[in-house]
């Protein structure tokens, strides 16, 4: 369905982009705009687009620490930030804190040219406008797999076999890369694997945890098996460090974010064989399941509630300028992400995320208590990964830590 909407979007391109071209950069705003968001190429593009507006000041604060500052920066009245660029996990924190406003009237007035599927609607209210999709998927070295005569893996079991073959052939000692840094990254890798084994984080219709299950144990065992083929420092490797390992030619197989894969080998000093051998494939399944061990993500922007209506309108107009279809004419911008913007035509870098969507990957849950679960996973799983305790014990610890946090926040009695 995702793919179909995108292709229809392609068909509307002509129409949309001509209207935008007609009024050129005629973006004028009447009040201040201040944007906070994550820092990767696609978001830089959106921020720069918003800053092209004239008439009032548009400032951006794009940083990897955006989640630490967006809620405090929007809780004041008037709010420091008039817009936060967020993803499906981080919008929950903003909604829990009640700092973003419904956008229905603004979409009505200034939202021409938006696709229906760009509107994030919660209980009938538009709460965010999405501009790109993201997912973790396989990134590999085609030249290395060719040497050992194997196809790119489609399951994690095949990935293990390929890793063993690469090691046995003496090509690489630690051929698997993984963002397994203790904390957010480790928890996210668990989420992927857990969903791949058919797990559910919570009891249906409740906030009670449900990770200490067969799927949970299988997920942890698979992660431990993979870690045997990773650099021994894996618990300190986040996405940046894992990418550095791949760029250095130390890693042949890894599960990586689509938004980072596109520009992976464009950095300076990447050896030629890494540039030539670099290839992207869809996410892998695990344990014979059909749903990939990955999650689907969208990135979008919101408008703060504690600001005047003039500022909200100016923010909406500026952000619309940051995601205008005319941007899609630039090849470099198209490569940066899987855009949901009308007029986007997929580039080869997008195959991984498209495959993820087609294979029915589960979107990352937007539950109010998911952040607490993610944090508990990140803190408690490292003991198991170091071999200090059993999978069951680690998962029992996760549930206990989550319950303590959820009781404090009032989600559980």
């Amino acid at each position: 369905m995702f793919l179909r909407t995108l292709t229809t979007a392609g068909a509307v391109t002509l129409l949309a982009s001509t209207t935008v071209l007609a009024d050129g950069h005629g973006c004028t705003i009447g009040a201040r705009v201040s944007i906070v968001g994550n820092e990767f190429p696609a978001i830089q593009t959106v921020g720069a687009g918003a800053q092209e507006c004239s008439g009032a000041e548009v400032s951006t604060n794009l940083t990897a620490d955006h989640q630490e500052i967006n809620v405090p920066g929007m809780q004041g009245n008037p709010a420091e930030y008039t817009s936060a660029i967020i993803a499906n996990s981080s919008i929950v924190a903003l909604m829990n804190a009640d700092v973003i406003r419904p956008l229905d009237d603004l979409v009505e007035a200034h939202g021409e040219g938006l696709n229906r599927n760009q509107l994030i609607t919660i209980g009938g209210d538009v709460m965010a406008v999405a501009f790109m999709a993201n997912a973790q998927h396989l990134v590999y070295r085609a030249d290395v797999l060719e040497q050992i005569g194997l196809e790119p893996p489609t399951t994690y079991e095949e990935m293990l076999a390929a890793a063993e073959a690469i090691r046995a052939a003496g090509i690489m000692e630690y051929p698997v890369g993984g963002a397994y840094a203790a904390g957010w990254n480790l928890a996210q890798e668990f989420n992927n694997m857990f969903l791949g084994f058919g797990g559910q984080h919570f009891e249906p219709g409740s906030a009670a945890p449900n990770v200490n299950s067969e799927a949970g144990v299988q997920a942890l065992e698979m992660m431990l098996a993979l870690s045997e083929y990773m650099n021994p420092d894996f618990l300190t490797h986040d996405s940046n460090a894992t990418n550095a390992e791949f760029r250095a030619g130390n890693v042949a197989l890894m599960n990586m974010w689509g938004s980072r894969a596109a520009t992976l080998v464009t950095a300076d000093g990447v050896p030629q064989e890494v540039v030539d051998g670099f290839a992207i494939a869809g996410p892998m399944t695990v344990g014979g399941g059909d749903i990939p061990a990955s999650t689907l993500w969208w990135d979008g922007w919101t408008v703060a509630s504690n600001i005047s209506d003039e500022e909200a309108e100016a923010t909406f107009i500026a952000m619309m300028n940051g995601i205008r279809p005319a941007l899609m004419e630039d090849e470099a911008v198209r490569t940066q992400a899987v855009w949901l913007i009308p007029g986007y035509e997929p580039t080869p870098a997008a195959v991984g995320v498209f495959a993820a969507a087609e294979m029915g990957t589960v979107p990352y849950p937007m539950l109010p208590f998911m952040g607490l679960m993610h944090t508990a996973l990140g803190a408690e799983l490292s003991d198991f990964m170091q071999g200090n305790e059993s999978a069951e014990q680690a998962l029992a610890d996760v549930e206990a830590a989550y319950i303590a946090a959820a009781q404090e926040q009032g989600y559980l009695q």
Partner: protein
Amino acid sequence: MKHRTFFWFFLPTGLAMLLFIAAPIVSVVMQSVFAPLEPVLVTVETCTPFSCVEETTIDQVATRELRAERPLGRFVGLDIYLNRGHLATTEVAEAWRSAETLGAFFDELGDLPFYRAMGFTLTYTFTVTPLLIILGLMIALAVNTLTQRLKGVVIFFSLLPMIVTPLVGSLIMFWMIDNRGVLGNFISWLVNDPDLSVKASTPMMWIALIVYGVWHSAPFAFVVFYAGLQTMPEDQIEAAQIDGASRWQQVRYIVVPHLMPLVTFVALIQLMDNFRVLEPIIGFNAAAHAQSLSWFILNDLGGETRQLSSAAATSVMTIIGVAILLSPVLVRTWRDFKGKM
């Protein structure tokens, strides 16, 4: 000084202390005994680029009304202090009942975040503090013997570790101990084990953090001791030399007793600082191996969870911890003070 004069003299300081020290502590204590109200949850249709599903969310209108009625939240007393994230009284009692040996009990204890963090924090505090005092004293004695011309340069270089921002300093060392880094490679060559990884081993990580802690704080001790050495009465040293005291005996019986009040001062400041260890854990990305109370506070406040009550409870426990650590030193200072009166 007349009481009246003293009152007016002290008033500005007293007010500032009330405003900037007492009030925040009261506020933190308040926050730690209140928790957020139970949010009103509703299930609504949520549409994203991928699909529309029924998903649980917070009913903002209803929750807003609840919050307006009781802005402080719900009173939970000491619940947060006693829950699993902090003192974990239920879990500790359970472990005590079920564990067969003392070792098994401590294993269970090490599985609870607070006790695991205390294990590291106390080890760190009680190794780093004495080591940095000894190292600082050694540097001060060495520098003091140099010629005037060399002193300036040497003092500047000795101070560098303290000038470098802790996060940057720890990050640089983190790269050096990487198993592809300079130090990491050297250590694995030393023990002849190519697979050795400092970052993957808890004891090695603790040692790295402790070494960093000593390296970072020794200059502070050095500066204080060096200043103390300038007030050293020459005649005592000369008298000792005439009596035939060796260099070691001079240090042991004259210099160290003379510097003792400064040692107490440095110990006091450093016990406090080291108990709140945070930057090296972040810089070394060491959260999997070592945690501290300050790290918990940061973790609770940051990201998507924002557990203010939990962070407040940990803060109060940090204050209590520092007070306990400092009590022997404070009692001693009080006794000395009384003795002098």
